[in-house]
């Protein structure tokens, strides 16, 4: 690129600052959005790949094949004693369990208990997970059953600058015990689902469920030296299951469950159970948003660059006349384009870097730009986009004979083919932008819906306290705590249940026999509740009544295990049990004649909106439910209530960490991920629309300036300013209207698939499509109206002299 060409480029950019800013700025924004979303996708798809030799680590999955059961599906959990049985049958197997993790145990310090991320693992842990150690030897660190290893930040937290090795810590799982520290490992990175800061040895467990086939308690990991070894092991699982599982699950155990291996790097995005692949879909969607936004920006850039390049036809013709050959001219345009795109890429990188803190805050992330990875990709992008942007004008202009260009009063614009191409590009980019807008509208509406939908109970004014179920609290102390909670000012009611808001508690399902239907009957979720459960949650029956102490058969705690008792069921259970209506179910007896239905309530949605509702029956256990989670109904500001409950707790149960959360907050964690995605999607959409408008503005400005003479002629022939505005606006409105034909089906199918991941979802109303389309049309009109008005007011005489 010779000096005069470089000067020409610089002066051209400086002279037409607005075009340069819009065009380069638009491309820079597109590059920034692409970079940021790519970093997010890269983060989400990189989980556990930081582990040394991660491709040899596999998660053991348990598949429950009982279709129709709420439990069916594949889970990354196994029976507690599975690994022990596997090693007995396959002695050379290398594996470890991880039991616990986030809030997995309690550290007791100075008489006070605090929850800590503690996991219990096997002695072979470091043979599977080769975690980088800062102090200590991996091979021996967990050999002693009373040895623990802690993370770098835990060491800092508990011991400051002192060497923690050899120090003693008191940890509590079922009961407190002392342990000595034998090593410190490096903190786990963010792209990991492993969540522990202290590792202790998993002891042999004597509880019956530990070795009960069909139960799940923890996660089991295995290491294999090759994929073939893993595959061979997986193929031996059916025989292993039949050998070991028949005792607990019967001879048809293979028809009920399976065991499979999942490479650990795939675990993060793998859906579990009945939960949909929403997370994976979301990652893919955001990745596509990033790519499409970049595509819109590139299309925009090329459109405007090629349109404006035609203005330089005269310069090109003169250069030809002065001796430039086609190669020199093509080289000049390509170099200019590559240089300009490089400037845009640099600005895009700066925007991404400075915008990342905002994105991280909005999305709950900790992304940063890995320059070693990003720089070559950007360089390639610059080359590709620069060539695409530079080649078309170079070839277009090189085609025109110099003589014709110099003789002509008007710069060639690529003719009708050029106009059609530009229109097609506007259709394409606005189509995508409108699809994005529709997507954002639906995402926001769905997020609002799950937050405000009727959950079947009054979610405000509830405080959930799961710690009551801690095994160190006997029944007397639990009852004392409940009584003390009831006396607190502001507390209106207190109840217990073995299942509470925010997926606290346990999941139990039972097969309930129904008269006239074959065994094993219908699978229903079973929830055991204490006094005032329905009143505390503000639940009214839709048929019959709820439990009360005036009816003796309501309280199952006073009855023998085979005695008949009363139950309350939910609406879904009415249908599942085969009754035509809630009224029809009243008084009916199920479960071998032992369970009498006294009332029907609506669905109580305690869990994630992505999970389907379960048919449920409730049993009343009087003073306190087994495995109790306490729920309080309070009035007023939750903060003083939480503080007073915490104080009371720390006074009466200091050895149990206090863990209380409002119902609203406990549910909010289910929405968090979708909220983050909605925000990121919204940011991406806004920028995609902005880029589209920038392109439209630039193109409209260019086209309008080329039509000044035509406008003068039309006005001379009698056209009014309004006629001119209609002409100019209409020219660009047509591609925007056509863009809807692309946007609507694209958005419809994509959103239908996304909404399919929610059990409780909004309907895809036409409003979501019409609204954004109208908005896009309005934005397009406003974008070009200013220029159209200005052009329409030009004096005809001046316009006719304009070249």
């Amino acid at each position, binding site marked *: 690129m*010779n000096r005069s060409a470089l000067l020409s480029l610089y002066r051209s950019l400086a*002279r037409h600052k607005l075009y340069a800013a819009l065009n380069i700025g638009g491309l820079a924004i597109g590059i920034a959005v692409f970079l940021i979303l790519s970093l997010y996708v890269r983060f989400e798809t990189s989980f556990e790949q930081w582990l040394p030799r991660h491709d040899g680590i596999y998660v053991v999955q348990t598949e429950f094949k009982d279709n129709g059961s709420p439990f069916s599906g594949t889970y990354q959990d196994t029976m507690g004693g599975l690994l022990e049985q596997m090693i007995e049958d396959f002695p050379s197997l290398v594996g470890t369990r991880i039991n616990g993790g986030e809030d997995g145990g309690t550290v007791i310090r100075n008489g006070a208990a605090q929850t800590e991320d503690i996991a219990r693992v096997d002695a072979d842990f470091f043979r599977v997970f080769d975690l980088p150690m800062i102090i200590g030897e991996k091979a021996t660190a967990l050999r002693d059953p009373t040895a623990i290893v802690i993370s770098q930040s835990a060491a800092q937290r508990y011991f400051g600058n002192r060497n923690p090795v050899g120090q003693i810590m008191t940890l509590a799982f079922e009961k407190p015990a002392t342990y000595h520290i034998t090593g410190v490992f490096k903190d786990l990175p963010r792209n990991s689902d492993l969540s522990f800061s202290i590792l202790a040895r998993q002891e042999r467990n004597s509880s019956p469920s530990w070795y009960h086939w069909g139960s799940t308690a923890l996660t089991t990991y295995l290491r294999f030296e090759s994929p073939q070894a893993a595959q061979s092991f997986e193929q031996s699982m059916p025989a292993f299951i039949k050998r070991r599982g028949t005792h607990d699950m019967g001879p048809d155990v293979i028809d009920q469950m399976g065991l499979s291996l999942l490479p650990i790097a795939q675990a993060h995005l793998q859906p579990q159970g009945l939960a949909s692949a929403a997370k994976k879909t979301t990652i893919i969607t955001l990745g596509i948003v990033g790519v499409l936004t970049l595509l819109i920006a590139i299309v925009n850039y090329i459109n405007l660059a090629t349109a404006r390049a035609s203005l330089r036809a005269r310069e090109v013709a003169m250069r*030809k006349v*002065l*001796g430039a*050959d086609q190669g*020199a001219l093509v080289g000049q345009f390509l170099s200019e384009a590559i240089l300009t795109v490089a400037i845009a890429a640099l600005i895009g990188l700066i925007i991404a870097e400075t915008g990342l803190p905002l994105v991280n805050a909005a999305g709950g992330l900790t992304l940063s730009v890995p320059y070693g990875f990003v720089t070559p990709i950007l360089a390639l992008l610059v080359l590709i986009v620069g060539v695409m942007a530079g080649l078309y004008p170079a070839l277009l202009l090189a085609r025109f*004979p110099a003589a014709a260009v110099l003789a002509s009063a008007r710069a060639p614009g690529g003719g009708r083919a050029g106009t059609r191409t530009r229109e097609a590009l506007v259709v394409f980019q606005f189509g995508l932008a409108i699809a994005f807008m529709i997507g954002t509208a639906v995402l926001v509406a769905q997020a609002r819906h799950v937050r405000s939908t009727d959950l079947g109970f009054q979610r405000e004014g509830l405080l959930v306290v799961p710690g009551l179920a801690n095994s160190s609290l006997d029944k007397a102390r639990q009852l004392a705590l409940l009584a003390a909670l009831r006396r607190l000012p502001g507390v209106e009611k207190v109840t217990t249940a073995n299942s509470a808001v925010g997926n606290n508690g346990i999941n139990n399902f039972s097969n309930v026999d129904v008269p006239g239907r074959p065994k094993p009957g219908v699978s229903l979720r079973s929830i055991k509740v204490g006094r005032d459960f329905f009143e505390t949650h503000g639940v009214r029956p839709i048929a019959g009544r709820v439990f009360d102490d005036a009816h003796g058969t309501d309280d199952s705690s006073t009855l023998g295990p085979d005695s008949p008792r009363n139950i309350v069921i939910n609406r879904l259970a009415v249908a599942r049990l085969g009754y035509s209506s809630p009224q029809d179910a009243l008084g009916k007896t199920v479960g071998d004649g032992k369970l009498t239905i006294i009332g029907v309530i609506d669905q109580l949605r305690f869990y994630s909106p992505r999970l389907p509702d379960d048919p449920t029956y409730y049993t009343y256990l009087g003073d306190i439910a087994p495995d109790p989670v306490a729920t309080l109904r309070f009035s007023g500001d939750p903060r003083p209530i939480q503080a007073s409950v915490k104080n009371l707790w720390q006074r009466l149960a200091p050895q149990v960490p206090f863990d209380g959360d409002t119902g609203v907050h406990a549910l909010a964690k289910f929405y968090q991920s979708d909220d983050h995605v909605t925000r990121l999607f919204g940011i991406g959409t806004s920028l995609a629309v902005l880029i589209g408008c920038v392109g439209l503005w630039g193109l409209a400005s260019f086209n309008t300036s080329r039509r000044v003479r035509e406008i003068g002629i039309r006005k001379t022939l009698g056209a009014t300013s309004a006629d001119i505005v209609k002409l100019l606006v209409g020219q660009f409105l047509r591609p925007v209207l056509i863009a809807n034909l692309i946007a609507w089906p694209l958005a419809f199918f994509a959103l239908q698939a996304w909404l399919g991941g929610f059990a409780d979802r909004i309907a895809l109303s036409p409003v979501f499509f019409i609204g954004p389309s109208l908005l896009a049309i309005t934005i397009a009109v406003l974008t070009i109206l200013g220029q159209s008005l200005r052009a329409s007011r030009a004096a005809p005489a001046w316009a006719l002299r304009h070249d």
Partner: protein
Amino acid sequence: MIHLENIQRRYLSDEVETTALHDIKLDVDAGEFLAIMGPSGCGKSTLLNILGTVDRPTSGRYLFGERDLAALDEKALAQFRGSTLGFVFQSFNLIDELTIEENVGLGLAYRNGVSDRRGRVAAAMDKVSIAHRARHYPHQLSGGQQQRAAIARAIVGNPRLILADEPTGNLDTANGEQVMNILAGLNAEGATIVMVTHSRSHADMAKRRIDMLDGRIVASAMHTM
């Protein structure tokens, strides 16, 4: 120096064939100042474009010295133009983003082996008395000044042939006279000039005039000074 023989130029557009030049035969000697006149559409500019190799004849021979230009490819023609020809246009055709000095320097941009570019540019600007505007941009100059700058660009490479297509067409009388005097001065120093013009008085400043009509040379006359 220049020999055109049986030059034809036909254009085909929308199934209509237009013949711009019919069997043109023309010789131009080195150091000659030739004016071409004729009504609009007679083919004068087409002939000039063919002489300047920015357009190719449909048939015929074009010899420049001993070189048959029909045999040259685009690359070779570009090199030929850059090293041998200088152009002056009615609408100046200066590049708006470059200063006058840079525009004049463009005349050397596509030539290899040129020494002392700066000096040559300065000399060309001095010759046409435009050096005082070297740092200005074209839109800051009057029409006459722009045309003088264009002439400087045309002569900076010491071309063997200067082609001027209505060089005074966009100028007033005074500026037109000035430009013509420059061209006459260059011719007096030995430059070969072929000029298309509508102005009889300007054509009279040339040594020979040819008249064209409907794509043909209909008259040729020497001008006695």
